[in-house]
């Protein structure tokens, strides 16, 4: 199992590096010199690595393979069921992308209000009160701490831009803040 992924990574690396070296061929001499000077040896090493993992994977199993090099960062703690690990890895990967896309679409302020709420309530099963209070804290940090106090610009996301609005929150917040000033 472990070997299969090792072979997979090896194939990916060899493909990528071959492409990098191939792409560099068309460039002027001084542009391609360094990418090639680095690219060829690294490609050679990647091929070596792939060959080695293929050899490990294809040779007849003489003995039950012991655990491969332990993960330095994951070795402590209770051993988890691989199925659970995979499910939870997929979950959090989805959320990583969701946060990135969400922040792009909504901007940091509104995104900071919306995304943690959804994550905390629906994924982490926190109560509405905790989730909302938390997100409000994130919003206040971005709006008051960064934008107001430090003049750190946090532009609105793509949705507000597409609709021709300045941002979703400024219509409500700015008059309030102007009153306070």
């Amino acid at each position, binding site marked *: 199992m472990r070997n299969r992924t090792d072979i997979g990574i090896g194939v990916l690396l060899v493909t990528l590096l071959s492409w990098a070296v191939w792409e560099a061929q068309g460039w002027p001499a001084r542009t391609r010199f360094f990418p090639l000077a680095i690219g060829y040896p690294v490609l050679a090493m990647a091929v070596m690595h792939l060959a080695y993992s293929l050899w490990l994977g294809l040779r007849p199993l003489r003995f039950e393979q012991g655990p491969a090099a332990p993960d330095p960062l994951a070795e402590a703690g209770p051993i988890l069921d691989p199925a659970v690990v995979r499910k939870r890895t997929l979950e959090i990967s989805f959320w990583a992308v969701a946060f990135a896309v969400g922040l792009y679409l909504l901007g940091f302020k509104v995104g900071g209000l919306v995304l943690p709420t959804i994550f905390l309530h629906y994924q982490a099963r926190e109560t509405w009160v905790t989730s909302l209070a938390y997100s409000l804290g994130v919003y206040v940090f971005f709006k008051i701490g960064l934008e107001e106090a430090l*003049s750190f*610009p946090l*532009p609105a996301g793509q949705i507000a*831009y597409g609709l*021709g609005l*300045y941002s979703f929150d400024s219509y409500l917040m*700015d*008059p309030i803040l*102007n009153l306070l000033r």
Partner: protein
Amino acid sequence: MFRRILFLMAGLMLLTSPAWGDAVADFYKGKQLRIVVGYGPGGTTDLTTRLVAPVLHKYIPGSPRIVVQNKAGGGSALAANTVFNNERRDGTVMAAISSSLVMKQARGVAGIRFDGRKFNWVASAFRANSACAVRLDSGVSSFAEAVKTKKQLIVSSFDKGGLSHLEPIFFNAIFGSNFKAVTGFPSGGAQRLAVKNGEVNGFCTTFQTMASTEIAMFEGEGKCCRVLIIAGEGEDHPLLEGVPAAEVLAKEQGKSKDEIAMLRAMNAANQISIVHTLPPGVPKDRVEALRDAFAKAYNDPQVQALAKKQNRNLQPRRGDGVAKIVEDLLNTPKPLMDRIKELIDKG
């Protein structure tokens, strides 16, 4: 009933807007004007923008809140592209970029996704001239001597086609000097360090830089270098005594019109150094209001005093003047541009 409500609302609007009738003031009131700086914090473009930003609101009708945002990438091409294509075109977003991008557009460099003719240029901060200087021990004491002896003078440059690279190769092509531009130095500091430690014979940059931040290289005990030639028609400065000005020299030597035009194209970007611009499509009255505001802000006593403290001599130019220079540069005849491109490629 309905008409009464309308009437009431109109009355309310009249009450809440102090300068009724001033569309620009109405527009900017309570809004934010975001200036997107094409470089990271601490660079000249950033510092110049932050120099005027604190007073700018005083001079814009409606006093919007000024926010400076750094968006570094592609030698400010990223900021220029973004503001031209993907930001609001109502006058609430403007860009602070390098004028050398216009030269890149003229040369047809990939990655430029804006048209300098369509930008609503607001102001530029400096009118500089580029100059080349060499070490005292380089074996050359004047530009005439450099041309006569054809001695190779290695100069440190940043990137190919950038100003520190254009100058030496143009002077070689037009006057017959023998500069060798070595590109790849990552910053102004690195470019000058290579001169100070004697790795190269000299360097080309704006004369403004030489006469301010690098004045110690030319004056006093530890001086190491002298100015050889300055672009344009020259300036009045003690360091430039006996130093030829490229365009004057070219006329004296009876160079062709094209060659003089090339020298002018080379120096054009320096003449509108550190430039602020609005995207196309911004209503004309707002553009004019911001042009006025920048002109006044650059002349603000506070800004002037701070610029003096920083040894920088602000020579602002209004947006219409900037637009003229941009237009001229972009209208450089194609054969001439081809020759320029060829020179750059030859390096």
